[in-house]
């Protein structure tokens, strides 16, 4: 399967990433190779409509969930400690006039 630059750009938009023209060129070539590698799962085992269970799902019994209790959460000043806060909120520059 050959992936086009337009498809890579569309994916980038979904992933909230952007590429310069030079990056896009390189990335499209690499991505083509990566998709060909991912395609190797279609080698021999045919997927059916069988129920998907992940390893995690199997480890946790849904009959045994903990009660939905309110527990103490972190204080605002701690949560805001990694960015410039504004009156207890996350601050951003004004981007609309």
């Amino acid at each position, binding site marked *: 399967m050959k992936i086009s630059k337009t498809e*890579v750009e569309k*994916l*980038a938009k*979904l*992933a*909230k*990433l*952007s*590429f310069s023209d030079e990056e896009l060129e390189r*990335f499209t070539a*690499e*991505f083509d*190779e*990566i*998709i*060909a*590698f*991912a*395609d*190797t*799962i*279609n*080698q*021999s*085992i045919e*997927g*059916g409509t*069988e129920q*998907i*269970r*992940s*390893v*995690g799902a199997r*480890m*946790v019994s849904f009959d045994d969930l*903990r009660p939905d209790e309110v527990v103490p959460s*972190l204080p605002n000043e*701690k*949560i805001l*400690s*990694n*960015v410039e806060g504004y009156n207890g909120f*996350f601050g*951003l*520059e004004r*981007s*609309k006039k």
Partner: protein
Amino acid sequence: MRTGISELAKRLQSREISAMELTKAYIGAIEKLNPTINAYVYLTFDTAMKAAEKADQRLKEGGAPLLCGIPMALKDNICTDGLNTTCCSKILKGFKPYYDATVWEKLKAHGAVLLGKTNMDEFAMGSTSETSCYGAPLNPRNTNYVTGGSSGGSAAAVCANLAVYSLGSDTGGSIRQPASFCGVVGLKPTYGAVSRYGLIAYGSSLDQIGPMTNSVKDAAIVFDAIKGGDRRDQTSVDYDYGSSLAECLDRDVKGMRIGVAEEFFDGINPEIKSKIEEAIKLFERNGAVIENIRLPALKLALPVYYIIACAEASSNLGRYDGIRYGYRTSSYTSIEDMIVKTRSEGFGDEVKRRIMLGTYVLSSGYYDAYYKKACLIREEINREFDAVFEKCDVLVAPTAPNTAFPLNYKGAGPVEMYLSDICTVPVNIAGVPAISVPCGEDSNGLPVGMQIIGKKFDEATVLQAAHFYEQSAGEVIGVYEGGARI
């Protein structure tokens, strides 16, 4: 032979040495070697000395746990309250978490002394640790070679004796492969055996924290301290291991059923293959029963792993938007523009590749063909492992198809690098435990690693088999002599 945790604990408890003296010695070694090795990306010497002082107080009072006063290191994706945790990514540079990961909380309660945070591939995505935004750590066994990855700094720190032990994380081999490349021991516990609360997520159905040490016994001691369920990680299980695994290591392998699957040996470097075969013969000479088994679905393990891990990564890394923490672009015209620019400037190429692959396999029209199919094949791989463990107690395999790569080795491109994870990813897909133990050297003097894989929550047998091998072959292969060779 490097002094192990039990011996150090004995000396600390008898007050032959103090935790402060021991910590100072490690700080001195780090100051001397870290500028070359680059194992640590963030040093916490002040907090280490304070922790050592507290440990000394506790040791003086008596009854302190084994890990009290022992200097150690944490991979840079394990959250430490108030101390930098960046996943070696520009997007998290300067990030100081406001809570401790459960594993760190537990080790702190044991009196652990944290020397610093260790280098790694950005967001644990890589096999060489070269995608770190701080530059690659160097392999202490030969500084022209990589440490492996993604827990490369944790492996290098232990190998060069810049920490007594470290913690790494393993999503597709990130503890075991660097352990193999640096000639140390690395244990990936069963999925669910150790809480991942506070581990910065990559592939949540695969990620697991585990110890990296100089001996199997040390790995068992650290695992004993960090294992257990946690209400803050709903995938963790409070499994009853019965007793301390470190105290049950002395068991011979007589009658132990050891499985050998030919699929693990396809395309392996012949030197590595012959080392593992020698080890299998050693087990056999000592009474183990060798079973030749088949795991046919293993040939699909690599694409299954990359599809599932990247799908989960694309979702997990959606949180880096520049709003709540980490890097934020300097100029933007709208919130959307800010998020896209922040992510594009903050993430490195490998992370972008994996986010893009994850986005692709989850996108409408491709979900069934890739993600759903990968989940179905994952079930098949699980079934195969379950069936094999009806007949075997453990499996023995190489940890990696090759020894350490030279620095800056790019191979034929990203896919060739992905292929080097062939021996380790099936273990994460199946959620079973596995250890990598040193198994001699290749003709270039680079360490070879042997992997011992066990049943879910049967770390005990995995550790016993590894300990037996280490005790029986350790003197011959001599990998514990010296560690760093620089």
